[in-house]
């Protein structure tokens, strides 16, 4: 029986979207809703799990199953769900504070374990929901409500951090890029294990313009360094010391997202330290590694299906027993 074709509308919940006008989250939501029919997975087999933050609201707007959890714990909630169910498509939506500040530990462990979940990290380099404090991706010296004299701490590079945590799939894309974003989601969905997708997302209210160098049509065209597997990376060379560089003398680099050794992807991630200049966009790494519990899930499902009163009796009576009559 052929299932009816899904459309974007099938993924739109009846909840009114409640972000500030102009928020990059709208663009991501639209792109995700437009993309999902393509997966051919019925909405009831999809789950969005989120933490707290503006981004966390995302879960309410998808007409799938959804859980708006607590701050930073999305990956842990999703790991539990994935352990219980291997028949679902599980997506985590998180912000830069949610994922990298309070939730940093769960993020790195989900990546290490290679749990079959897709994590969309909406990076606006600020705390949106709580009205404008510094986040772990805010740049050094950033003036925010919590850092009125400028932040004294340098930021994480989410791609580097993920690679250091043994991530098997790491990508970066941009909220308003209607072509690139679905392309990355497609690859993330196809990836068997944990996928981390960093999405540069503009917060017009508390951190407007943070990604203008990449979002602007004109500046974006100059600054985006697209990573496409098997294609040369425009403007990037390998210098005599073996290091990757933007511009200058050296050998051209052909992108290889499947390279086992993450050192190469890591080197790519270091080409930019903040999104105000040339910045790699695309899939840094996409390799296979045993997926947490994949085989186990099947094995256990079978065991549980077979478990009945008889096996329970056997278990309870295992070992030494005695009978009193």
């Amino acid at each position, binding site marked *: 029986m052929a299932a009816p074709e899904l459309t974007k509308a099938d993924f739109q919940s009846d909840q009114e979207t409640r972000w500030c006008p102009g928020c990059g989250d709208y663009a991501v939501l639209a792109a995700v809703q437009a993309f999902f029919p393509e997966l051919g997975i019925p909405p009831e087999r999809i789950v969005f799990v989120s933490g707290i933050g503006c981004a966390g609201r995302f879960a309410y707007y998808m007409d799938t199953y959804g*859980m708006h959890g607590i701050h930073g714990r999305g990956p842990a909630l999703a790991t*539990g769900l994935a*352990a219980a169910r291997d028949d679902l498509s599980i997506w985590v939506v998180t912000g830069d504070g949610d994922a990298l500040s309070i939730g940093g530990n769960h993020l790195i462990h989900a990546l290490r374990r290679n749990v079959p979940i897709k994590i969309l990290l909406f990076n606006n380099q600020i705390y949106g929901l709580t009205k404008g404090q510094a986040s772990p991706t805010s740049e050094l010296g950033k003036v925010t409500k919590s850092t009125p004299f400028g932040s004294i701490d340098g930021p994480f590079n989410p791609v580097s951090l993920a690679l250091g945590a043994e991530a098997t799939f790491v990508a970066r894309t941009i909220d308003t890029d209607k072509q690139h974003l679905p392309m990355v989601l497609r690859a993330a969905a196809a990836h068997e294990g944990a996928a981390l997708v960093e999405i540069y997302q503009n917060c017009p209210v508390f951190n407007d313009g943070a990604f203008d160098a990449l979002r602007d049509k004109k500046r974006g065209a100059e600054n985006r360094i697209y990573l496409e597997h098997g294609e040369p990376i425009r403007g990037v060379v390998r210098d005599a010391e073996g290091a990757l560089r933007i511009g200058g003398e050296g050998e051209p680099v052909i992108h290889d997202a499947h390279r086992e050794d993450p050192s190469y992807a890591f080197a790519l991630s270091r080409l930019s330290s903040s999104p105000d200049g040339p910045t790699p966009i695309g899939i840094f790494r996409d390799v296979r590694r045993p997926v947490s519990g994949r085989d186990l899930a099947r094995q256990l499902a079978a065991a549980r299906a077979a478990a009945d009163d008889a096996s329970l009796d056997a278990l309870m009576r295992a070992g030494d027993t005695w009978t009193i009559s």
Partner: protein
Amino acid sequence: MAGDSGDGMQLAGSRFTDATAVFGNDLATLPDFPAEIRAPAGTVAGVSAFQIHFASRDILTPGDTPDVLVAMNPAALKANLPLMQRGATILVNEDAFSVRAVQKAGYAENPLEDGTLAGFTVKRVPMSSLTTRAVEGIEGATSRDAQKAKNLFALGVLSWLYDRPVDVTERWIRGKFKGPVCEANLAAFRAGWSFGETSELIDVQVKVDRNVDVAPGTYRNVNGTEATALGLIAASVKSGLPLVFGAYPITPASDLLHALARRHDMGARTIQAEDEIAAASMALGAAFGGALGVTCTSGPGLDLKTETIGLAVALELPMVIIDVQRAGPSTGMPTKTEQSDLLQALYGRHGESPLPVVAAQSPGQCFEAVFEAAQLAIKYRTPVILLSDLFVANSSEPWRIPDAASLPPIDPRLRTTTTGPFLPYSRDDNLARPWAIPGTPGLQHRIGGLEKADRTGAISYDGPNHARMTQLRAEKVDGIPVPDLEIHGEPDADLLVLGWGSSYGTIRAGARRVREGGGRVATAHLRHLRPMPANTGALLRKFERVLVPEMNSGQLAHELRARYLVDVISYSKVQGQPLLPSEMEQQIWRHLS
């Protein structure tokens, strides 16, 4: 304590005896020398043993069946195993179980591996090699000294387990030995003691009243941890829900993780999470997916799970949280028991976040308690806290094995269809909301920690709605019917002793002794801490005096006073040790007169 006659067992035994006497315990000993003076080393005939029975008072015999056997080699094990009851603890010197030694003792297979010790709590400690290493650095000490010092290592471990004062023994060692040998013995003794402390060794004796009438049936020995594991598996089988158990190791809760991790055959999935927050979150995430989500921890871990448990309250999803209490505050005494997380279980979350709290009262009853916790969680769509403690988790008792068929089925009542729009926060007669799990077509919905509108579950900041939801959440929990408190003993006595949790057996035993002595006393035991049995208030008022013994500073007493305005008498013991029957007896007498 048993070993080769050359192993110095008598010496170690008498040292332990002295330390015990100093400690103020009553005791009786039974040295058991080998018949032949020089029986071949390693054979059963060559085994030398020393038995000691001690307790606070009332020692009548040198201990019919020992609770703990220290076996320095296979022969010692072989010789003494027949004396031991299932459930006892056996500390073996793992290093001594070489193939040759095993054969010499007359075993065909290594008894540590072949199931011989099933039903016992076996602690394998590489005593020889640890002693050697302890002695290694000592100038002038030979490897023979090390070899000979392992009795003191064993003594050190035992001293740790039973809290014997170390200074007495150290002073004796200093007096008895000189130079490197003295140093070697001291080092071995301390190493054993440190091993006990550092690796959080636990031992508890079976304190459960054994004189109850024994019902017909098939029995086995279980400790509380094993019974809990079986109870969870049973709840999974009887509900048809997969068990997903998220935990982070912590003494004394880790053993449940270890036990369940072996149960792939029953479809149980355990996850060692990165921390307790994740462990609770994993259980809750699994519950959203239709699993029986369970997490287990001890005090410090419960602290960390607080926020996630609060989320479970808001989501109204089934979840079981097991807290194996240990002595706090903070890291406290991780290997000692206590009942001091009661008020935390009841109130330790921000906002109004009520949930049912159940307590386990004996090792075997852990099975029922956790099974019931799962039933309540599933029926009422709520997190449930099960309070256990180190004592009940580690002590063991004969347990009448239920027939699987006699256990009630647990119907998860998963919602699979809807007429009209699906209302995730509508409620049934029990005020429980529908549990519709991912994969169910047409019932897609979103839930979260923000306040929800009644029935629809949409986000709501409306004041009266919040009041209503707050009330509904409390009513749901407080409306759970729990069985009435049952009075044991004289219902018309003046004194009621009301306990909860692991002191069940002790209170019964204490009361029985009083009755044997001609006193009149009633006892009752709370297994449900929220809601409490409907007759609790009436019972408290019926008796002239109510004594509430607890291993904390009076937490249940506080709660009873608040709920029932009855001036109960708190007997509080916060020593990291279980209550003793003798102590109960004494307290009861005190309040009878």
